[in-house]
């Protein structure tokens, strides 16, 4: 086609320019990395000898040449070249379009006009110097290895460490005690028995097991049991490291108050026993199918335990009275309450310190009457959400029925600050003994999502959308 020669000549010129710039770009990159590698012979100048600077320079040159060759050999399509030419001469994609369409069989008469137009525009244009030079980032860093090369070339060679490394293992120490301290000193020291060979872990455990049965072998605070199930048990005792840098075991021994009382059997607590009995009593039966006599026996056993210092005597008494009156439901309710108290007391006794969370004290200080007593059974965040309470019922205790005036109930709310801020809504009146709390942020997020879905789904006027959005924003600010 007429004009293609001019087009191809321009493409050829621009292609050569691009290849040249690429060679420069990658050549400088290669020189940088060559200079980095070239530092190595200079570092070992002593070993390499007087040819080290020449080798270094050779590596720099080799890197530059390899980079330039790589840049020059990179693939370059005619379309890319045409686009560069378009940008260089502000031809608004004429060259690229003409080049692409000139060889297409479905070209329209407008393509011929386009080629003619492009030819007229590029005739007389010089394709050289249209591709601007791009410097690689490595060029800024190139002076650093070059400077280091000069310094290393001028500096004396770095002495390399010679001879064998000192033997760190005591078993390989060939020097005898006499050689280190002299014969007289060693003679004055009492001779110790030959060191016992190290035993495997299994052997150690077997030995300990035998010792447990022996009189005086096991006593309160026997710390050997502490390590038996830890990773430390598998480690070889190394008393040198014990003394030098302080072993983890030493740190553990210092914290005596954190050590559990291993003598106590937590699996056979009062609460556990009674809970298992209660479970056996129910055995898949409905409350109305329970045997009143067995229930009475269990309540009486709980009452006996309560006399020794438990605070569930009142509940049990109420339960027995209810059983006498034939109200099994109330008796069961009282039993559950007593079990909760028993568990709470045991929990308090287990930590040994009777510490209470700051929030519990806050609750007590709010003066909500009977609510404080019940809340003491729960610690921070527990008993409020399904599965987090200490009640045997996985969903928590059932809300008590309001037997008093039906209007003797209300809801109060107050914001709660802390690590995770929230908003409490609590019942007033009889229901206050079973506080109901919802995580404000969780509820707010749910409602906000519902609002957004409704807005997206329904046709809501734009003005109203803004109002609803503002309302939710104002709620969010209270977080």
């Amino acid at each position: 086609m007429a004009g293609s020669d001019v087009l191809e000549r321009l493409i050829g010129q621009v292609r050569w320019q691009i290849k040249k710039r690429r060679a420069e770009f990658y050549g400088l990159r290669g020189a940088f990395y060559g200079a980095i590698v070239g530092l190595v012979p200079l570092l070992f100048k002593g070993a390499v000898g007087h040819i080290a600077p020449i080798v270094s320079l050779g590596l720099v040159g080799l890197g530059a040449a390899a980079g330039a060759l790589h840049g020059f050999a990179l693939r370059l399509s005619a379309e890319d070249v045409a686009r560069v030419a378009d940008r260089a001469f502000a031809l608004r994609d004429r060259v690229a379009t003409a080049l692409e369409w000139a060889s297409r069989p479905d070209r329209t008469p407008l393509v011929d006009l386009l080629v003619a137009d492009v030819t007229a525009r590029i005739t007389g244009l010089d394709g050289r110097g249209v591709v601007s030079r791009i410097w690689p980032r490595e060029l800024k860093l190139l002076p650093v290895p070059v400077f280091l090369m000069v310094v290393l070339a001028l500096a004396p060679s770095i002495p390399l460490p010679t001879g064998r490394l000192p033997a760190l293992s005591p078993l390989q120490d060939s020097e005898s005690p006499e050689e280190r301290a002299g014969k007289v000193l060693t003679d004055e020291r009492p001779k110790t028995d030959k060191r016992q060979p190290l035993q495997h872990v299994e052997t150690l455990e077997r030995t300990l097991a035998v010792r447990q049965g022996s009189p005086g072998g096991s006593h309160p605070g026997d710390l050997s049991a502490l390590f038996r199930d830890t990773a430390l048990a598998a480690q070889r005792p190394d008393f040198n490291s014990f003394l030098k840098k302080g072993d983890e075991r030493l740190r553990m021994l210092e914290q005596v108050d954190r050590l559990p009382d291993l003598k106590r059997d937590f699996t056979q607590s009062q609460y556990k026993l009674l809970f298992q009995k209660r479970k056996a009593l129910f055995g898949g039966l409905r409350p109305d199918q329970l045997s009143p006599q067995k229930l009475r026996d269990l309540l009486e056993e709980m009452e006996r335990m309560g006399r020794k210092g438990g605070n569930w005597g009142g509940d049990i008494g109420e339960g027995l009275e209810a059983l006498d009156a034939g109200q099994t439901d109330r008796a069961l309710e009282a039993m559950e309450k007593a079990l909760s108290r028993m568990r709470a007391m045991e929990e308090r006794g287990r930590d040994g310190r009777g510490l209470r969370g700051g929030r519990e004290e806050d609750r007590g200080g709010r003066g909500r009457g009977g609510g404080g007593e019940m809340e003491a059974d729960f610690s921070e965040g527990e008993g409020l959400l399904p599965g987090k309470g200490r009640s045997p019922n996985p969903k928590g205790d059932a809300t008590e029925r309001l037997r008093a005036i039906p209007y003797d109930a209300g809801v109060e709310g107050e914001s709660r600050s802390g690590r995770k801020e929230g908003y409490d809504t609590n019942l007033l009146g009889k229901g206050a003994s079973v506080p109901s709390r919802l995580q404000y942020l969780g509820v707010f997020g749910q409602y906000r999502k519902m609002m957004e879905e409704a807005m997206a789904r329904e046709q809501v006027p734009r003005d109203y959308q803004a109002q609803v959005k503002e309302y939710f924003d104002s709620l969010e600010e209270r977080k």
Partner: protein
Amino acid sequence: MGHGDRVQEFVGAFGGLKAEVQKVIVGYDEVITHVLVGLFAGGHVLLEGVPGLGKTLLIKTLAAGLDFSFSRIQFTPDLMPADIIGTNIILEDAEGRKHFQFQKGPIFAHIRLADEVNRATPKTQSALLEGMQEGNVTVSGASHPLPSPFFVLATQNPIEMEGTYPLPEAQLDRFLFKLRVTYPALEELNEIIDRTTRTREAEVWRVMTGPEVLRFRELVREVPIAAHVRELASLIVMATQAQCEHAPEVVRRFVRYGSSPRGAQALVLGGKVRALAEGRYNVSVEDLHAVARPALRHRIILNFDGEAEGVDVDHLIGQVLEQAEGVSRRGKEVFLR
């Protein structure tokens, strides 16, 4: 006549028609250009602006500059589909026999102005759909072809939303361009006052006929487009979709639905008309940028956050263009490959 002459004829006709419109309409150079681009690309145009900015006058002036039949329908809530399309009426011939005859509605015109299109009910709006897309209407099972060229210019008012029925997305998508008519500048307003308060109004000459417009439409479609420009058009459209990997952050956050493939067609067709109107024989990247906003702004549906935050779709398209151009340039950079 050779193709070179036809191109020169098109350039002259485009400029001539624009000059005729500008005899009456002050300013709005870009809006007028885009309306003409829509006309020669074979699409329909939606104009949006507050009342009194001259949208209707612009369209009427354009119709006056073309030797076309022109009809105007003021859309109201009680307008029925039959009021637009037409209806069958009973006629009695000379022998006394009665028969149905289709009475054509105002849709059977070359240029149709649908004024305040969002005031009609969806049922009536949907009567436009078949005509706009297919070029014919069906009444009682019989199809009636619409005259060619068929060009719908609709206006709508962005305020006074009470009692309006926003055009559904499917119907919006059938408009090639959506143009925003904004307030005129001070000098333009002075000129408007001068022109409209005189005794003699400007006279508009007819400079183009229907067959000429059809010939120019064919010519426009012959304009070649380079592969990388076409790819950029596709990339722009893809980047309006939130799930696209090249979509900018603002699209991911605020867009519910991005542009359909019709958006890419509008970009390329609009670019072809612009290129030819400038006497160029190829579509350039700049052409795509010039038509991107009118071609895409009604095809991008914002999500709730976008609506509530008042995100400007034009601004969003600007970011889409930057992103797509960046991705395209990275591919173009010959040194780093």
